[in-house]
């Protein structure tokens, strides 16, 4: 097989050449610099930076809070998507449009706004304080911020899949005496599962790298409420380029792995749709 299939349309060389050159200059070369910087530090230094207790504590918070946020998003994102697809109620269109808000809103704005709402004198924080629940400046605040950031990814992934669920299958199952829960488990969930898994991974991937909205609400105490991206920034401010690069390298590797699994999940989803004859 030759490199490309013949076509009478012009501009292939020009557009592909320009876009790969630009991609290389803006994204690939800089990322290669990160990998090379990491490679210049010795293996022992690399391991020492990565296993530093403060770094390990930051991974635990970053990945733990991201995982929890992605789980919360999968549950509520599914409920919200279901509500928007299946039910008719006043304001539905407006809410549907607002789902993309966390995506369009600058992270610094969501950060200070969430902190104001969940601080002990905030609109919601003041009702939680009497129960001894502190959200702002604790790990719970980190989860709240990451949940807001990831929400559109789950809802937008799941919405088209819920619309795909065949209503006549649900009706048939109901006629045959299936319970609501059985219908959900045997008909709805299998159709929506690949999309939900994609949404979960997208939300998780976005949460792991998130910086802007978290640093305002986290309190940023070393060992307790310090996320890994913040640790990278701190190392840069101390001119510890190698340390910053090592942590960045690890996060980059994780991003690659997640991007790969998102692609695999989407292929899985498409295959299932094809297998179902659609």
């Amino acid at each position, binding site marked *: 097989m030759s490199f*490309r299939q013949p076509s*009478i349309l012009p501009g292939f060389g020009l557009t592909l050449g320009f876009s790969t050159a630009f991609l290389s200059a803006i994204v690939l070369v800089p990322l290669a610099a990160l990998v090379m910087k990491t490679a210049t530090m010795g293996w022992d230094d690399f391991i020492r930076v990565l296993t530093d207790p403060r770094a390990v504590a930051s991974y635990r918070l970053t990945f733990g809070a991201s995982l929890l946020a992605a789980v919360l998003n999968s549950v509520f994102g599914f*409920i919200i998507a279901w509500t928007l697809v299946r039910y008719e109620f006043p304001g539905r269109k407006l809410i549907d449009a607002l789902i993309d808000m966390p995506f369009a809103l600058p992270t610094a704005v969501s950060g200070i706004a*969430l902190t104001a709402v969940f601080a002990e004198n905030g609109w919601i924080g003041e009702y939680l304080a009497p129960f001894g629940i502190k959200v702002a400046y604790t790990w719970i605040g980190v989860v709240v911020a990451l949940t807001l950031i990831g929400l559109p990814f789950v809802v937008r992934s799941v919405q088209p899949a819920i619309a795909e669920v065949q209503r006549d299958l649900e009706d048939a199952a109901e006629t045959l005496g299936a319970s609501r829960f059985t219908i959900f488990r045997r008909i709805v969930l299998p159709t929506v599962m690949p999309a939900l898994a994609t949404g979960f991974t997208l939300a998780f991937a976005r949460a792991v790298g998130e910086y802007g909205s978290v640093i305002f609400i986290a309190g940023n105490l070393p060992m307790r409420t310090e996320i890994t991206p913040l640790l990278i920034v701190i190392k840069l401010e101390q001119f510890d380029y190698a340390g910053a690069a090592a942590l960045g390298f690890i*996060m980059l590797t994780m991003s690659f792995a997640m991007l790969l699994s998102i692609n695999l999940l989407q292929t899985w989803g498409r295959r299932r749709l094809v297998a179902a004859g659609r």
Partner: protein
Amino acid sequence: MAGGPSKEMLAEIASRPGRDTVVGSVVKYVLIGLSLAFLAALLFAPLATVFATALSKGWAMYFESFKDEDTLAAIRLTLTVAAIVVPVNTVFGIAAAWAIAKFEFRGKSFLITLIDLPIAVSPVISGLVYVLLFGAQGWFGLWLQERDISIIFALPGIVLATMFVTFPYVARELIPLMQQLGNDEEEAAITLGAGGLMTFFHVTLPKIRWGLIYGIILCNARAMGEFGAVSVVSGHIRGLTTTMPLHVEILYNEYNFVGAFAVASLLTLLAVVTLVIKSLVEMKRK
């Protein structure tokens, strides 16, 4: 007529109460309630807080915030960065979409994955890579210093970091759209003797314009709102290298809440406008 159920019977079946219509409507309202409660706490309350805090000392104080020299400088810098980044990324997006959607070649899906990469990468890393290249102790740090060129802690660094972060948006919007539209009309135009540019402007562009507009608007919103990547390369020099989101942080850390939320309210309005345009574009497409 023999065979099928009679009209009366169908009507009777239709009027039968469903097995669990009561349960059905309970489930419906519980789910709607849960959705609204979740969104109210996480989204509506923070959005309302932005404006409530910005206006907490009255409209006069609100407008006073925008007379501050550093705030104006931050707004100017943000507009400058967007004015450079958005057109460049738009040209890239169109070129990449043309190559990917119109032709079949090896390594195409790998190329798409690479274009998506900046979305999966932490914004802090997007800034970090440029510091490693152009920072004082970076690969080209010394070379740049000798020639008295500053990239990091200056406008070029902010532009580069923003470009990295907002790089995929136009391309991501256009690729699926152009793939879906197919090549037939373009091939017809070329066969009839139209040139490449003429084909693009007269055949392709009219078909993709709404998708293109949305891609540009989204790219612009992300460019103006980028925080993490810009924060790493900016150096936070007040009035010089602070963009609007960074200025929000500075004012907030100085406990100037009215000022911080006033600037934040502008960014929120930008997001609202972005979503309104998105909705309009979606309506046009139908």
